[in-house]
């Protein structure tokens, strides 16, 4: 009877069982990484297919049925049709398109008369700088204020923080940029109105860095203002969800101060879902960057996209779309992998 009683607890307690469990876990990690990377590759392929579908296969698409437009000449379209092999059947076109992509051959821009691939490579740096700075600021601000708002929910601070976030959430990014431009660059003349560097350049390394930083302030603050509000709301609601959890009562009963309960128990648990949601929505940050770059003429991928719209420069648009979407997909795979390191529950699953 005794052996029966001990075996009723399902978790194996034999040393062999422990080792086996460890092996399963290691295998699980390899599997998890493989699944996530595999999923990422599938998503990348989908991005590529989407690029093909949108720009070449869509019925009624201007390249398929030649139309006249202000900037694009019929000649250019004809050239593109020949270059993209638009008269061939679709499967053949797709194979050729894939091959081109793998060789980083994204075609020639109508507007700049340069290879699209080179144009994009030249613009990645500024976009990374802008989105990186904004992401960092927004994360720090959003998580900190969100935690404070949730912990003292209903307080004046909470109402103020939530109210501000709601208003910022309702503000179109580009309009906020326009207002910032008008007030701080035009009226007060505190910051430059456009670009990333002073035309003509500055001498010396440090002055050059400061010059870029000076140009960065307005676009980065605008992008931060819109994104931190979203992060704040996410952090606040996931912390609120944790606030009624039983393990917080346990922590209080143990004699922890309010501050310790928050820092050691509540925030780590609330942070995990928040970070997932934030990375899942990197796309929003990229979308914001497109409009901010447009307003401040920040020479990144967003401005490149905007310039392509007006023309319309189809090869360039296709290129920026694939690169921006692909970058977001890669970011998400990375976030998934990092998340696994943070959350023990995912590690075991």
């Amino acid at each position: 009877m005794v052996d029966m009683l001990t075996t009723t607890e399902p978790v194996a307690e034999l040393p062999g069982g422990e080792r086996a469990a460890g092996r399963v876990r290691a295998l699980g990690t390899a599997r998890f990484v493989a699944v996530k990377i595999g999923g990422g590759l599938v998503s990348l392929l989908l991005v590529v297919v989407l690029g093909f579908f949108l720009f070449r296969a869509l019925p009624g698409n201007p390249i398929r049925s030649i139309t006249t437009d202000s900037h694009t000449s019929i000649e250019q379209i004809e050239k593109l049709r020949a270059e993209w092999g638009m008269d061939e059947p679709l499967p053949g076109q797709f194979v050729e398109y894939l091959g081109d992509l793998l060789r980083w051959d994204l075609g020639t821009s109508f507007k700049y008369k340069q290879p699209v691939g080179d144009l994009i490579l030249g613009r990645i740096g500024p976009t990374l700088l802008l989105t990186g700075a904004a992401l960092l600021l927004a994360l720090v601000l959003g998580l900190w204020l969100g935690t404070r708002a949730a912990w003292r929910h209903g307080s004046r601070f909470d109402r103020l923080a939530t109210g501000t976030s709601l208003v910022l959430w309702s503000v179109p990014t580009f309009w906020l940029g326009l207002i910032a431009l008008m007030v701080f660059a035009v009226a007060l003349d505190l910051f430059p109105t456009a670009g990333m560097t002073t035309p003509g350049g500055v001498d010396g390394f440090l002055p050059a860095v400061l010059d870029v930083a000076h140009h960065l302030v307005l676009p980065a603050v605008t992008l931060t203002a819109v994104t931190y509000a979203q992060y704040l709301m996410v952090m606040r609601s996931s912390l609120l969800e944790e606030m009624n959890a039983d393990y917080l009562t346990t922590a209080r009963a143990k004699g922890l101060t309010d501050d310790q309960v928050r820092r050691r128990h509540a925030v780590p648990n609330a942070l995990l879902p928040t970070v997932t949601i934030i990375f899942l929505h990197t796309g929003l940050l990229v979308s914001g960057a497109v409009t901010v770059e447009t307003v401040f003429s920040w020479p990144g991928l967003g401005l490149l996209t905007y310039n392509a719209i007006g023309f319309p420069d189809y090869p360039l648009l296709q290129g920026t779309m694939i690169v921006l979407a692909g970058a977001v997909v890669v970011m998400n795979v990375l976030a998934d992998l990092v998340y696994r390191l943070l959350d023990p529950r995912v590690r075991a699953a």
Partner: protein
Amino acid sequence: MSLLEFRDVSVSYAGARTGVPAVRGVSLRLDSGEKLGLAGESGCGKSTLAMSVLRLLPRSATVSGQILLDGEDVGAMSWGRLRAVRWASTSVVFQGAMHALNPVRKVGEQIAEPLVIHHSGPQSAPALRARVNELLGQVELPAAKADAYPHELSGGQKQRVMIAMALACRPRLIIADEPTTALDVIVQAQVLEVLTRLVTEHHLGLIMISHDLAVLAATCDRLAIMYRGEIVEEGDSRTLIRDPQHPHTKALAAAFPTVGDPIYRYAPATLTSPTPQQPAPTPIWGGGRVRGQFTADPRQQDPDPAGHPQVAEVSTAPLLRVDNLRVTFHGRHREITHAVAGVSLDVHEGEIVALVGQSGSGKTTLARTILGLQKPTAGQVIFAGEPIPTTSRGLRAYRRQVQLVLQDPTSALNPRHTVYEAVAEGLRIHRLAGDEHERVAEALRNAELRPPEEFMPVLPQELSGGQRQRVVIAGALALEPRLLVADEPVASLDASVRGEILALLLRLRARLDLAALVITHDLGLAWNIADRVAVMYRGALVEVGPVDDVLANPRHGYTRSLLAALPDSGTVNVQ
């Protein structure tokens, strides 16, 4: 000076709908080394009272009266003093199976945390580790478990971790809040054993809260019964169980029948006895719950409300025959679970069979397979001489014959549907001819919800737990089935309504000749209503036979261990 004293303590919640305080004028004393059990049904205020000791109640709660811990008024303590008292002099064993442990921190860290907070013992990392290992050893867990996360532990192991954590700072008083609820009978017995042993060894004071009088009686010296915020009875455990005075205590005591005692055979104890002649309890709209007269003593019951127990004739073909049934699940990591591993079982017409086993024994999978909700891997289910159909049309027709009653009536009813719609749902699915209204009324009457018209427009959440379960039963009866499969039909109901539902099943069998397969973890339930019992262990039936035989002379070791795990007061030596 006593260890803990409540002096006329009342607790009320701001914004509570009823306006009635959760705890009313409670005075209690506990001396050091004493074990006090606090019993009552859900919502009686027992947890509120316990949490008030360390001022762990939510901010909306107002406490009046005095709570003295070692003579010191808890209400008057400063925050710093209170934090110092928490855990160091009084600790809590929460219901660890739920979320009382932080899911993203190792349990070892969580056990060590109070040691660090209260500077208890040497603070070096190896010393802390040694103390954690020692504590884990005391609750009979291997030291390696310190590196586990809560989700890697079973319910029983989590509860042991909670106990180890409570002992960390060598407190003088432990408050255990439903420490074994949601655990299996056998695991429950193990955890209780560990808890009582440690409390006795360290000469600690213990307040244990439970809805299960039998569990408390087995652990505590003294019992206090709470009902609607008040202590209605208090006294020595054995005397109180043997000779309960207050009607509510009687009802609680009777809800846990003594297996082997003929008084309880085919006679589940009921608080109210809604025999067909009596008016049913009125549905409650917003106001307080209406309770009937207390007639709890099973000895005073109508001795034979259920008709005679029918011993099925072996010669007739069974209504349901389960033939060497197997259900196998494939997990994500290619592990294989044999949830049902070759089960054969018959249910005859008009017979009540109890299928007894712990959670994870495969009994729910078996029930789902019988209903055609789960495809068997091998073997078959034969109903009225024919294998159950596999086409969706055939299954639909089959499900008129066999109906399901689920464990938790609160979640088994769509909260958006009125009682009428819930009962009529099956009729509409099967597009049965005839007057729908009349059929619904008839089903409600059969489930003893009278007058049916009063219940029809009511939403489930406006009913009491027992009434909800009657609605579920009425929904099944509306299709005029021949077999009822009831999966833990009373497990989530309060003790005092448990008997009513069981008695209803017996009366339905008598009146409608309805057969039933009742799935349960509770041997007492089998003793109360079943003709035959089948004991399931790890997917297989280890023992099948008439209730009186099997429970009086268990042959299989598992059946014996189940009987042995019943808390002491519940078992009578039948030999």
